[in-house]
């Protein structure tokens, strides 16, 4: 089971998606829809994925992240990841994600930076 919880920060300019449970191919479809639905309503969206409580993830998660990254970039926004557990970090590194998006140790740290950089 995957649980996702979404919040908006900074007058709706930052979408924070907090994930817990297991992210696999079965769970990916709905998550993708939910995030894209919110992204559609935003101009130059800033997307932050908080993975601290994600107990399991496989390549389906990488696919969801890469797909959202492309969408966000196409809308001149930015995307970041916060708090990935060690096994998730391993997958992010294996696929080179750490080179294309910023990975913060915590949501708080990410938000400080994301709120600070340009209005």
């Amino acid at each position, binding site marked *: *089971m995957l649980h996702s919880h979404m919040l908006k920060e900074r007058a709706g300019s930052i979408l924070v998606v907090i994930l817990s449970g*297991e992210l*696999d*191919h*079965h769970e*990916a479809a709905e998550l*993708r829809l939910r995030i894209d639905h919110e992204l559609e309503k935003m101009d130059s969206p800033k997307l932050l994925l908080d993975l601290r409580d994600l107990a*399991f993830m*496989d*390549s*389906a998660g*990488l*696919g*969801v992240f*890469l*797909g959202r990254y492309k969408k966000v970039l196409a809308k001149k926004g930015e995307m970041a990841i916060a708090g990935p557990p060690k*096994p998730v970090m391993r*997958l992010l590194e*294996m*696929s080179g994600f750490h080179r294309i998006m910023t990975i913060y140790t915590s949501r708080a740290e990410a938000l400080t930076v994301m709120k600070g950089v340009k209005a």
Partner: protein
Amino acid sequence: MRNVDNEMTIMFLAKSENESFARVAVAAFAAQTNPTLDELTEIKTIVSEAVTNAIIHGYPEEDGYVFLHCKIMSNRLEIVVEDHGVGMRDTEEARQPLFTTRPDLDRTGMGLTIIESYVQALTIESKLGEGTRLRMVKSIAKEQSAAVYEV
């Protein structure tokens, strides 16, 4: 059946609901080898990758069966995932990092690369129109084991 300490086979329909079932079933079986938490995560991950491939790529149209065989031989775990689906032309190409035939489904082509880095041996046999068989062998370190573990 000499040298095999334990063995199990399950078969299930190629439905995405069964991805988590397959992970949990193999993890529970593999617990007999006293894996560490990291090893258990790796086992769940390779099962998830192989079973998901069978479901998405093996049976793109209708649901067939996925077969999952596991064997424990002292400190080695052998996992075979088989489908009788569409098969693939070139297994070498499939193993390349970032190679995917389904970018439309948000796949990144990392599944087989992840499996390769988590196992000691990976063999892929496949024939177009007949299906695919993945054999993975993972050694479980003897010394430490997870003090507590949850499936």
